[in-house]
């Protein structure tokens, strides 16, 4: 069974002349262990798709199911709890809390949720992300790449079954961007998460299991083209 499922999901903003169809009727499924890329130009509806998939906004029409639970049936509080349990967001803008050091960012998650990574597992994660020496640093003392890697660690710390990453490589140079993509791939296979990465950088999608392209809110599965030079 798909861990994440969108059925006939559609999203419109505004009415009349200002009406925007940010998402046209879309069916979508993600399985555990799948790394999926969603590409498309700016304004095509990538973030809209991702936030609807993660339960941060409700579709105008259609249904979103996470692990078999229809989000529309849940009250905001329950939806937040489901997000905390199942979804790890890696956001484009830094999602770090300025007054907590890296270690404390994770500690906060222990305050609000059980079943997060054990000490040893967390250590491994920090090592694989190359941030184990930064545990006592505050966000202001981290570089853009370090912040992004901490953000990934934060998303993974709760053992989510779904990882939703909105342009996680936007603030990184290309070496770092490839590194982060590789890391996401490794994690996807190792932890059997369904990982969806939104990006407008088509160079980063080679290792993905599936690639979707969005144009003007219309989402289409891309046939793989292996003849990249």
């Amino acid at each position, binding site marked *: 069974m798909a861990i994440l499922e969108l059925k006939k999901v559609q999203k419109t903003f505004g009415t009349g002349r200002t009406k925007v169809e940010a998402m046209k009727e879309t069916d979508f499924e993600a399985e555990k262990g799948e790394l999926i890329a969603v590409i498309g130009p700016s304004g095509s509806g990538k973030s809209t798709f991702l936030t609807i998939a993660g339960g941060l906004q409700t579709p105008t029409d259609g249904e979103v199911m996470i692990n078999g639970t229809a989000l529309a049936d849940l009250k905001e*509080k329950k939806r937040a709890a489901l*997000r905390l349990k199942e979804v790890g967001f890696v956001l484009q*803008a830094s*999602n770090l*809390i*300025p*007054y907590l050091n890296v270690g404390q960012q994770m500690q906060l*998650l222990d305050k*609000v949720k059980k079943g997060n990574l054990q000490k040893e597992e967390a250590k491994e994660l920090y090592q694989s992300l190359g941030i184990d020496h930064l545990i006592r640093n505050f966000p202001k003392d981290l570089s853009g790449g370090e912040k992004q890697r901490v953000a990934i660690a934060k998303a993974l710390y709760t053992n989510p079954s779904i990882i939703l990453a909105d342009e996680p490589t936007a603030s990184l140079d290309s070496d770092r961007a490839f590194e982060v993509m590789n890391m996401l791939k490794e994690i996807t296979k190792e932890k059997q998460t369904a990982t969806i990465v939104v990006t407008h950088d088509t160079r980063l999608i080679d290792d993905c299991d599936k690639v979707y392209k969005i144009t003007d809110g219309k989402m289409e599965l891309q046939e793989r083209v292996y003849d990249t030079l």
Partner: protein
Amino acid sequence: MKPKGSEFMFLAWNEIRNNKLRFTLVIGVLVLISYLVFFLSGLANGLEQLNREAVDKWEADGIILTEESDLRLQQSILSKDDFDGSGVDEYTELSQLSAIASNGDKKENVYIFAVDPSSFIMPDVTEGNAFVDEGEVIADDTLKEDGFEIGDELSLSSTDETLEIVGFTDKARFNAAPVLFTDQDTLETLQYGEFAEEDSDAINAFIIRTDNLNNVEADKTLQVIDTETFIENLPGYTEQNLTLTLMIYFLFIISAVVLAIFLYVLTIQKISIFGVMKAQGISSGYLAGSVVAQTFLLSLAGVMIGLFLAVITGLFLPAAVPVAFNYIEMLIYGIILIVVSVIGALISVQTIVRIDPLKAIGG
């Protein structure tokens, strides 16, 4: 998982630690407000004692005055025979006179109370001796601080007669003036000079002890009132108390409003941070709990420092400033300050609940 209080402290405390200047300002404002509250409460207390000390010392339940007296001691003129003690456990007569007393050096507004030395309103002597012979008085010991001493000859504004201080007692001020205690004969001589009758029986009031004031049987021309009512009707007493109490209550409101504004501004600044946390699934309840926990920490710190400063100030104040700290009352006021501060934080809780994580992360 329901977070406990200590879990809320995690965000609250770490934020304070990493934004010392910002939160020092908040605590500073709270220190000033609580300092003012404690100081005013001390002042209210001090002024209260200044007015009622001598009456509290009686440990009496009630007082009998004439119906016409309008509850003023000096306006109540009655006779020893007007009350026979029916319905009370104990009673005694009180006569009083207000005067300006001078030891040649210093002048002081005083009340002279004539009391029966064997009665329960006879004060304990803390220094020197009780009055025995005509013209001898026990004085309230605040007069000592003004330079009056045992053996001082006191001349009075209204008569040529003089008095001699033979002893001191403590806590004996009435209506903002120290009291001199003496016997009925001495007081009559002061009042009527050589024309004083032997064994005159004019007095101002009966002071009574009883379990139930309703059982007291007194003549219709008299009124029996409880001690508290008597004190509340002392000139200026209620007005003064009300003014200070009102100021304290206003300060409670002010501290709630000031803190509410501060926290609201801080919360507005943190909307995107809260939004990010909410996007991850951290509940509004946890974030609100953290803000409340933070307010609690801030107000606790502010109130403790304010309390400390008030007590320190109290130690260095000249005796003339009527500040008397009632620690239980200060504790209660401190708790009220903390509670109203936390209530002030609830506006921010509203804001947090309404934060849309989507807007905050700006997808």
